[in-house]
């Protein structure tokens, strides 16, 4: 583990300023420690050896008071700077991550595991708090204090300085060695944590299903088993990674003990002064303290850096190459031609689409039919620019879809996914997601057209009712109709619908179909249809044949 990942300086730019501030504060703290040591040694020597009283050491006491006041101010400053930097750095990383994930798109997200990634984006990044607040400043102090303190000790006692000079460099060496040894394990532990949180979420999300089969209570034993395995595995890692701080503390405190004993023995022989001895004794622990703190906070920092590593891994994932043309042809006026399109997902053996060709005529309603699993949804994902084909092309009029800027292209598209999601915001905002300027009249009209008036009527605060994440409180059919209303309101020339009438009863389905048909006037509509009622409604039918490896029983 590198103590300071250079990518942190790139993605969390606030880190740079923080390092400069830390060096300034760190140097001041080191100088104050030296002044305090001289003042205390002076007072003790004067009183013990020369029999001085308070009056004779007044000056030294005032120096001591001044040092303490300066330390108080610096402690405050250092703490505030570190904590606000941590908050800003996390925020910068989170923003970079979110922006990048948006570039990678929904299909990448679903395959990467959205729960694990959400945990990384929120809790994972929070682990950087400890890194900024307790680790990085100590890392800087671990440079400034030994230099300032070490030089001061050298002016007082060559032998003590030699002991410091020999042991101090050993500490980072051991740190690197133990760090190298534990790196893989700490990374694995972070992944285990992700898997564990994924497993726990999976089990909680599947609670209704588990309950049906009488397996819900038995899963408690499973959670305990995984928790215990995680504890044992983590402790095994900790036994090793705590070893690094054991070595550090041992070197640090044992060196202080050696210095104290050597000074004592030389004092007995009379070839050393008490004053110099006290200065060295007071400074020696201070010299090792920052390195000890670095060791003590190593584990917390490793967790933060492990999370940062996970973030960088996402940030380093190359987003698919996208075009930049913004002169998008109007898809309601020009046809869409699909030529020899193949799509293969890395984690699925068989291609999702294998050399598919077809045409979508402008201003007409085209139904995509074909057995389940034949790649109809994948085709929509390609049309949306969520998936880049491995080969083949999609032409909008005479323009290759790959040359178009995806945002500019999607501004012409409305879409109802197979499993539409409602977001945790009001019904109004959910419907107006793709048309934020729409007024209430248009929103209600869209809901009415989508046969969703009953949804509006059933909610206590009408359009203002907050809908839970995933649309809790609404049935699957109600969620779908809200999603259809969302697409209608978007008023786009190309409308893509993935089974828009699934989970709807016959009467509501007829309402929705009528609305879709009405809406289709002057637009190009592509609809994935399982039901004959949908396919019959369409002007054209395009068959997406099953690909080689996925077979469905006829």
């Amino acid at each position, binding site marked *: 583990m590198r103590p300071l990942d250079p990518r942190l300086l790139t993605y969390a730019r606030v880190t740079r300023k923080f390092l400069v501030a830390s060096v300034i504060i760190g140097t001041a703290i080191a100088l104050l420690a030296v002044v305090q040591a001289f003042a205390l040694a002076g007072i003790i020597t004067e009183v*013990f050896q020369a029999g001085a009283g308070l009056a004779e050491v007044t000056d030294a006491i005032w120096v001591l008071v001044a040092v303490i006041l300066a330390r108080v101010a610096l402690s405050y400053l250092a703490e505030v700077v570190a904590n606000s930097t941590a908050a800003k750095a996390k925020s910068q990383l989170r923003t970079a991550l979110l922006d990048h994930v948006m570039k990678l798109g929904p299909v990448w997200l679903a395959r990467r595991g959205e729960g694990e990634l959400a945990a990384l984006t929120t809790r994972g990044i929070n682990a950087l708090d400890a890194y900024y607040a307790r680790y990085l400043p100590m890392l800087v102090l671990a440079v400034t204090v030994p230099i300032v303190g070490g030089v001061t000790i050298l002016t007082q006692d060559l032998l003590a300085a030699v002991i410091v000079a020999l042991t101090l460099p050993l500490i980072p060496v051991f740190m690197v060695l133990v760090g190298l040894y534990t790196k893989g394990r700490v990374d694995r532990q972070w992944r285990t944590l992700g898997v564990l949180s994924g497993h726990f979420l999976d089990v909680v999300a599947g609670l209704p299903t588990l309950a049906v089969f009488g397996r819900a209570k038995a899963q408690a034993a499973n959670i305990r088993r995984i928790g215990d395995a995680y504890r044992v595995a983590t402790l095994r890692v900790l036994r090793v990674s705590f070893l690094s701080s054991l070595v550090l503390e041992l070197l640090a405190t044992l060196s202080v003990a050696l210095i104290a004993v050597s000074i004592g023995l030389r004092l007995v022989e009379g070839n050393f002064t008490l004053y110099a001895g006290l200065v060295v004794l007071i400074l020696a622990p201070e010299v090792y303290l920052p390195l000890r703190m670095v060791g003590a906070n190593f584990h917390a920092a490793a967790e933060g850096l492990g999370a940062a590593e996970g973030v960088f891994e996402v940030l380093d994932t190359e987003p698919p190459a996208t075009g930049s043309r913004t002169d998008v042809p109007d898809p309601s006026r020009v046809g869409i031609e699909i030529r020899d399109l193949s799509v293969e997902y890395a984690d699925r053996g068989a291609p999702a689409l294998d050399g598919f060709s077809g045409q979508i005529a402008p201003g007409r309603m085209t139904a995509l039919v074909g057995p389940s699993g034949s790649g109809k949804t994948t085709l929509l994902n390609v049309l949306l620019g969520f998936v880049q084909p491995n080969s083949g092309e999609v032409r909008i009029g005479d323009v290759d879809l790959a040359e178009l800027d995806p945002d500019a292209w999607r501004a012409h598209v409305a879409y109802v996914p197979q499993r539409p999601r409602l977001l945790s915001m009001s019904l109004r905002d959910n419907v107006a997601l793709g048309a934020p300027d729409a007024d209430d009249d248009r929103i209600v009209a869209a809901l009415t057209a989508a046969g969703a008036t009953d949804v509006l009527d059933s909610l206590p605060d009408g359009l203002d009712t907050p809908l839970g994440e995933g649309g809790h409180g609404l049935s699957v059919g109600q969620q779908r109709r809200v999603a259809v209303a969302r697409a209608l309101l978007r008023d786009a020339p190309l409308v893509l619908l993935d089974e828009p009438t699934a989970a709807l009863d016959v009467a509501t389905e007829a309402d929705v179909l009528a609305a879709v048909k009405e809406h289709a006037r002057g637009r190009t509509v592509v609809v994935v249809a399982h039901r004959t009622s949908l396919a019959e409604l369409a002007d054209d039918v395009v068959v997406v044949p099953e690909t080689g490896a996925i077979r469905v029983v006829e």
Partner: protein
Amino acid sequence: MTTSKQSEAPTPGAEQDPSEGAIRRLMRLSRPVSGRLVLAAILGALAVGSSVGLLATSAWLISRASEQPPVLFLTIAVVSVRAFGIGRAVFRYAERLVSHDAAFRTLTDMRVSIYSRLADNGPVALRPYRRGDLLSRLVADVDSVQDLSLRVLVPGLAGFIVAAGSVALAVWLLPAAGAILAVALIVGGVAVPWLTMRTGAASAARLAPVQGRMTSEVVDLFSGAADVMSCGAGRRMVARIEATDDEFTRVQSEGAAAAGLAAALGAAAQGAAVVGAVLVAVPAVRSGDLSGVNLAVVVLLPLAAYEAVVNLPTAALALLRVRSSAERVFEVIDTPPAVTETSAPKPLPAPADGVRRVELRDVAAHYPGADRDAVSGVDLTLRTGSTTALVGPSGAGKSTIASVLERFLDYDGRVTLDGTELAELDSDQVRTVIGLCAQDAHVFDTTIGENVRLANRSADDVAVLAALDAARLGDWVAAQPDGLDAAVGMHGAALSGGQRQRLALARALIADFDVLVLDEPTEHLDAETAAALMADLRAATAGKAVLLITHRPADAASADRIVEVGR
């Protein structure tokens, strides 16, 4: 060793006096590891005590040596200095291992106890929580709860022991210096943490909910990415998270000021102790109350002794976070169940002449907290060997009837299983007879085989493949290179919508329920496959009582009876 039997024991922290504080309740959950925690505190005290001892004995050694006594007089001091030099590192290492072990044990206990409670309450009780918020409560909040032992209990107890020991040493050398040190340690160990807690309380309590909101917004964006991006709303949704992020950053910065204040006051207390020691010790040496050789010990002692309390303000802030997180966790645990279990369940009735009979008479049901019924006035009868179709517009409460039959939700009216009221039976036993293939059946992140076997642990591969065949998924599984061992991904990401539905069907079939509720089984299937599946279903469920919830006229037509709701 923990056995599964123990984990299914009544949930600790379940039957609670509601006024009991979250921390106190948490302490009860930590009781099984209290021995380990005390051991960790003692080891921690020995570690910090070694630091104090090292500085004190070194100061005495150097002062005494400067008087040039025979070396023999210094032997004990020399040995002590070296011993303290080693002790600190060794004790610290042991303390950290013991305390982490205890914290992880408590963490697992918490997870198990929370999960058991959720399982007892039933799935309907979780409806009020957003999935992201629930994830945050069950993962992040439960994690931060382990800080109670690591960051609060162990350092607190260890600090108290060392502080008391250091004061005792100072009092023995010079009572006035001891008094000053005691005051400084009380300021640093009690007043500063208390102040930190007061100033940080508001921000710490606000941090957890903001974090929860941010988590649910992030989950929103990630799971709804297709909806959001196709609407061109990606930038807006990211901006929404950034606004929450800004609030989070601001709340955290308020905590930063509190932490800074604590650090400053701590430094002031420590500095005052050193100056105070000088001010009383210098005259005491003159007056002979303090021997000169101990002057350095008295003056330098505060420098080392302060380490006993230096971490306590952090501990106080940790305590606040723990309390806020614990309250959020307990809130989920304490959500009242949607089903009232009978205290004296009747035995499960045997079917008369092998025929199961489920009757619903004027049944109504409403979700907890809702002020109106989700469904009402339902009458229907299910009998072995016959299929009843339940039809009605979407939102009419068809799935609510499924929840009632599964005993996930209480009901009004009468529901009887072979003549015995459903509410008078043990819910778990009801679910061995009445099964459900839900509309949103969950596909677990494991293999296809394991997903099916979940419903019947004793089923062998042959039985699993037969069930998959009956759900028209057998050929597809056979075409997979890994067969039954093929992984389905998170939420069944590697499967299409129709395949997920058929996997859930196979699972419901292999469980071999007498009464089976099928909630929209042909959703996501093309018409041809749907018709074929319905025919297979008729065959596979011939000997059962089936309730088919559907809105497809074609599906309903094949049923023996059709019941409408919501019209």
